[in-house]
């Protein structure tokens, strides 16, 4: 403890009077984390936050060399990878951290789903989390185009074409996203603006809400633990839980460095709007289950074009997931809800199975 009157104590008192340090101290002391057998899942939200911080830091560094135009984007990244010292490292960490972040977001989502942490009063926390998932996927989709290589070009062509399938507003949205009728340099500058300005702004606001709600309600204890009747145990957030968090973050950083060193991000061939789509073209792994589903759908299902059925189906699936806190009435009343546990497990199995097929099924068959 700082002694009042000593220089550190005086600074502390000065700051406390002006910004209310004592309030923060009180909050940090008050925050406690429940201890039970599902406690490991509590770490994935913080892990996602850490990886997001890595994205902000490396993203800012990439901005110093990247040039957002169809003529220069590919070349500027070539320069970054080949000439700039540690350029390969910064870009590879950005790419790998993006992938790990999406992975931890999904783990966080499914653990919250299976442990029923979305039940009242945490519905808004769930909604803001789902919105953050959507933003994370939008970050991935817009960032994928920025190197302006062959894979990115066709992935963006297909991805934006999918919005065009939507009834009524599709054609308008397609033009709005692409900045024209085709994927061109205009699309690249739009995606760039969205990736580095619009999405960060939205994430900052939503993340603020999400974290505020997590502090307000505290961590959710799974209903199965609550029902077991054992006396609730907790551990202080500062320093016990936070230090464990930091260990996890350091492990993640080591993993990122290793991945970046052994599997640096590739650049491929420069996009050519007048070349055929390359064999084996595929989206980022987190879109793979949807991509593979589209491949299996026949051209027409009950008179409707297959891709419309698929895309509307995924839209409804997402809406269902968003509304789970309202649909799962049994959990809301405090009763066990086996149905929603099985729906959650079914979703995980579906995503894993289709992703597996996407990587193993022959691309030419």
């Amino acid at each position, binding site marked *: 403890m700082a002694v009042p009157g000593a220089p550190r104590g005086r600074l502390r008192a000065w700051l406390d009077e002006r910004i209310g340090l004592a309030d923060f101290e009180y909050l940090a002391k008050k925050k406690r984390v429940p201890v039970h057998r599902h406690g490991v899942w509590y770490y994935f939200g913080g892990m996602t936050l850490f990886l997001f911080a890595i994205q902000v830091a490396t993203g800012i560094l990439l901005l110093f060399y990247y040039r957002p135009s169809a003529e220069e984007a590919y070349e500027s990244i070539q320069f970054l990878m080949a000439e700039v010292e540690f350029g390969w490292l910064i870009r590879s960490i950005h790419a790998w951290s993006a992938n790990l972040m999406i992975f931890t977001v999904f783990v966080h989502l499914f653990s919250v789903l299976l442990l029923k942490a979305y039940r009242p009063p945490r519905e808004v926390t769930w909604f803001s989390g789902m919105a953050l998932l959507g933003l994370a996927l939008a970050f991935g989709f817009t960032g994928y185009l920025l190197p302006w290589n062959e894979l990115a070009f066709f992935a963006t062509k*297909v991805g934006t074409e999918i919005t065009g399938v939507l009834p009524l507003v599709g054609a308008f949205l397609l*033009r709005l996203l*692409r900045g024209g009728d*085709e994927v061109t340099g205009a699309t690249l500058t739009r995606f760039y603006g969205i990736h580095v300005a619009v999405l960060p702004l939205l994430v900052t606001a939503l993340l603020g809400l999400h974290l505020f709600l997590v502090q307000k309600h505290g961590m959710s204890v799974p209903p199965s633990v609550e029902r077991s009747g054992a006396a609730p145990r907790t551990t202080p957030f500062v320093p016990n839980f936070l230090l464990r968090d930091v260990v996890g973050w350091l492990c993640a950083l080591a993993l990122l460095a290793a991945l970046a060193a052994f599997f640096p991000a590739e650049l491929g061939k420069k996009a050519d709007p007048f070349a*055929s*789509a390359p064999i084996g*073209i595929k989206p980022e792994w987190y879109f793979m289950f949807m991509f593979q589903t589209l491949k299996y759908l026949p051209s*027409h299902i009950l008179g409707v074009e297959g891709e419309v059925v698929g895309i509307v189906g995924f839209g409804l699936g997402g809406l269902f997931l968003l509304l789970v806190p309202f649909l799962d009435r049994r959990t809301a009343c405090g009763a066990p809800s086996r149905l929603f546990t099985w729906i959650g497990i079914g979703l995980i199995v579906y995503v894993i199975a289709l992703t597996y097929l996407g990587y193993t099924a022959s*691309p030419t068959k």
Partner: protein
Amino acid sequence: MTSLSLEPGTGRRGFINWLLGTSLAAFLVSVFYPVARYLVPPKVEESMAASVKLSIKPDDVKPNTGQIFKFGNSPAILVRAPSGELRAFSAVCTHLHCTVQFRPDIGHIWCACHNGHFDLNGQNIAGPPPRPLDKFVVNVRGSQIVVSKGT
């Protein structure tokens, strides 16, 4: 003597509220209308080319091969049918608009994105594409190939 009502929505107070409300709405419209219009990209003149002369010579198009060429703003594909006839189609897949290619190993047109197959008449024969490829008319004048839009 007029009785001044203090009920919200009536009298002088209501009038002021209505005035403020409508000016606020008008203000918001005047800010967001230009922003909305700004975000919609302007229409660019589409290349209206009804026909295109290729730099590819007829003799260079061997049987069981296909070549991509530019038709206006979009890619097209030139193939030689087993009968020896040259055929041209839009290379834009009718599924999700990837660019198709000729696969010599299976002898027909194929889209790498979602595994769509088209025969040498442009007909969708397997996979997700819902419609045949758009067909163009190929004319050979001496050593010059001219591809034009069908009527």
